[in-house]
């Protein structure tokens, strides 16, 4: 009797501990299930196949940026320049593509392959600047990437000078706005980036270092891990992902212009954090980011279906983000108290 009671108590204790450990991942998932159920009941059109396609398409660009950001946040750094770098890459490929004669930009047309290459090179370079300022000069990434946000916007402004370009290389055009069968190419690209990133984080040495550097940078340093190299890498990965997202985004929207992705900065950070990746680094991953993306995607899309005042929509999104942040910090505290005991 006594023994059973004790076993029960122990099982209950273990369940509680698992719940505590997983709070950060369980809460977003529960939110997602709740939102899907809610919108499914509230609006018959929400759960249609066409709408599902919509949701996927809507979250793909944010998704690719958020994947890059996941690396950065896992390392306990931040990248505020993702949207700006996306904009630069998008503008760069348009700048190096033949535009319609009505477009008044002093562009330099190159073949599609070169334009894409230059788009990637630009994002890589800007990511490299972020990395160098952060690890070599020692500026906090928050500051470095804030400056890069402005620099990126500046580069776009100089290249397009208030004009709008429309044409991008055919390959990017297909990947950004075409589809294979019912599946949009852009969603396939996002899935591919997510899959590769997940594999890198889970199964490679580099991925382990990312988690360890985020978990305890000092300890990683004292274990002979090249912390500087890891931080450099995640900032460059983030920039290249953003650049890719920006190129596809330009094709998706059918235009390249200034400030095109400004809304995406907050959305991508929100996706990572809402999903449950720790803001303090060291825990989380691509799986979490996908859940976060779906929560935001479903929320954005669902609110359109239930005809709510669009101003209230913004408020609701803000409240959801706040709740996610609170859970994130609270989960961190539980984890720390658990580790100390």
């Amino acid at each position: 009797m006594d023994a059973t009671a004790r076993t029960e108590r122990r099982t209950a204790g273990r369940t509680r501990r698992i719940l505590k450990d997983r709070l950060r991942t369980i809460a977003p998932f529960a939110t997602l299930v709740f939102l899907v159920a809610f919108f499914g009941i509230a609006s018959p059109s929400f759960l249609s196949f066409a709408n599902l396609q919509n949701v996927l398409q809507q979250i793909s660009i944010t998704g690719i940026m958020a994947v890059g950001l996941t690396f950065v946040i896992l390392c306990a750094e931040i990248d505020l320049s993702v949207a700006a770098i996306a904009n630069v890459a998008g503008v760069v490929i348009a700048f190096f593509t033949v535009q319609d004669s009505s477009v008044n930009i002093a562009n330099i047309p190159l073949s599609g392959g070169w334009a894409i290459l230059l788009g990637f090179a630009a994002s890589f370079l800007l990511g490299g600047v972020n990395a160098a300022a952060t690890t070599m000069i020692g500026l906090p990434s928050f500051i470095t990437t804030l400056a890069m946000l402005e620099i990126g916007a500046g580069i776009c402004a100089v290249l397009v000078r208030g004009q709008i370009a429309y044409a991008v290389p055919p390959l990017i055009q297909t990947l950004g706005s075409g589809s294979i069968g019912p599946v949009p190419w852009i969603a396939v690209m996002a899935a591919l980036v997510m899959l590769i990133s997940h594999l890198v984080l889970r199964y490679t040495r580099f991925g382990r270092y990312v988690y360890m550097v985020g978990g305890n940078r000092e300890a990683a340093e004292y274990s002979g891990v090249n912390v500087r190299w890891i931080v450099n890498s995640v900032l460059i990965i983030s920039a290249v992902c953003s650049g890719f997202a920006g190129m596809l985004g330009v094709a998706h929207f059918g235009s390249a212009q200034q400030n095109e992705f400004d809304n995406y900065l907050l959305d991508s950070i929100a996706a990572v954090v809402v999903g449950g990746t720790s803001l303090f680094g060291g825990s989380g991953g691509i799986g979490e980011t996908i859940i976060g993306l779906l929560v935001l995607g479903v929320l954005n899309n669902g609110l359109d279906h239930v005809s709510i005042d669009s101003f209230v929509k913004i408020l609701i999104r803000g409240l959801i983000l706040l709740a996610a942040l609170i859970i994130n910090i609270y989960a961190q505290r539980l984890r720390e108290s658990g580790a100390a005991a």
Partner: protein
Amino acid sequence: MEGEQPKPLLELRGISKSFGGVAALREVDFTLSEGEIHGLVGENGAGKSTLMKIIAGVHAAYQGRMQLAGRPVSFTSARDARDAGIGMVHQELSLVPQLTVAENVFLGAQPLTRFGTVDWPRMRREAARELESLGIEADPAAILGTLPLGLQQLIELARVLFSGARIIILDEPTSALSPPEIERLFSLLRRLRESGRSIIFISHFLDDVLQISDSVTVFRNGRRIAHAAVPTIDKAWLIENMIGRDHGELADSYVNRVELRGRPETDVALEVEGLSLTGAFSDISFRLHSGEVLGIYGFMGSGQLELAKSLFGRRPAERGTLRLAGRPVRLSSTSRARRAGLAFVPESRRSMLFAQEPVYKNVSIAILDHIHRFMLRPARERTIAHARIGDLGIRPPSAEIRLGALSGGNQQKVALAKWLTRQPLVLILSEPTRGMDVGAKEDVVRIIRKVRDEGIGVIVISTEPETVLSLADRILVMKKGAMTREFAAQWVGKDELLAAA
């Protein structure tokens, strides 16, 4: 004192406390008299801290009775205990280094003007008076963080006294202090005793305990094992009661003199010449042979901890050369140092381990690149971790358990474990046994000796003479950033080390 029975100020009877089914204290009695300095010794986990936390109101749930000045008390919070006149000075000071001395003395209780703003002149005046009355020479306007650690500690003591404490609990107050600082602390404690205050003095430094205490209580496994007046006991008696078995290998570190083995007839593993780093150390030269434990001793702030970090590439030296096994190396980063064959365990556990991660990831972190160039091989990592857990006797023997759940001693073993799979040429250990209980210390001493016997050159860096004496074959003493003396192949005692430092 003879003849008259001193009045008991604080009395605890039959105190028991357990955490999740594990008994931390069993039926403990404890009496503190008025105007007494009461030493408290025991291994880590013996129950000292738990008892002190009960007295200081941190643990409210326990069995047993507590009486303060004859009246039963039961504190529900640390604030309760403070209001009743019980103050605690923790090992990690709870002061704000960025504020001035005066602000720290008044922390949380600043005098206010009529308008509700801080009355700065009065605060400085009263702080100055308070410090002067305690014989603490510190400028109330100085920024606390710029003062030596010993002085900061006295200021924390002043703060506790100022808040009206009659009973003061000091947790390891001497571990970071130089002998003159310890002397200053002790004379202040004696003065407080004369003014009728009672002091509980917790320490691993048995000499210090014997020097300052009127009586000593020994704890072991949650029980009060013995209590005696100081003149009637000695160090051997304390150790015997603390560990309750034969002293074994550790006796070395407690007895006063040891014989150093001296330099072995082996190759030079590490040759350091003219190493300098501004503000830390200058012109350091020495040779480390393989299969030798070289102790580097010095007081806090003598530059030896910085030297260790510098050797491992964390804060590269500005001048000087390093040769590893005869080859010149430039160690500009820790990853380079690791690949060159150096290994380092820093003094603070927090900065060497990943508390949230399982043991096996903590063990494998330094050798992932040797397991596979790009990929992870978790099965291999676990096999390696299990091997190390076996070698080093890590408890509990699980590779999956989160590191933070291990005891301090076992965490230290994990920190060693990560360097022992691929043997380094040189292993640098900073404060390898600090804050550990006797049993865990003994294990670490045994591991270090084994590593040495396998032909690794080991450098042990410490501010505790006992640590260096118990481990080293040869000892270098550092003082104000310079090497001042070498002890090799001779008998040496703590007093000589202290004198050289």
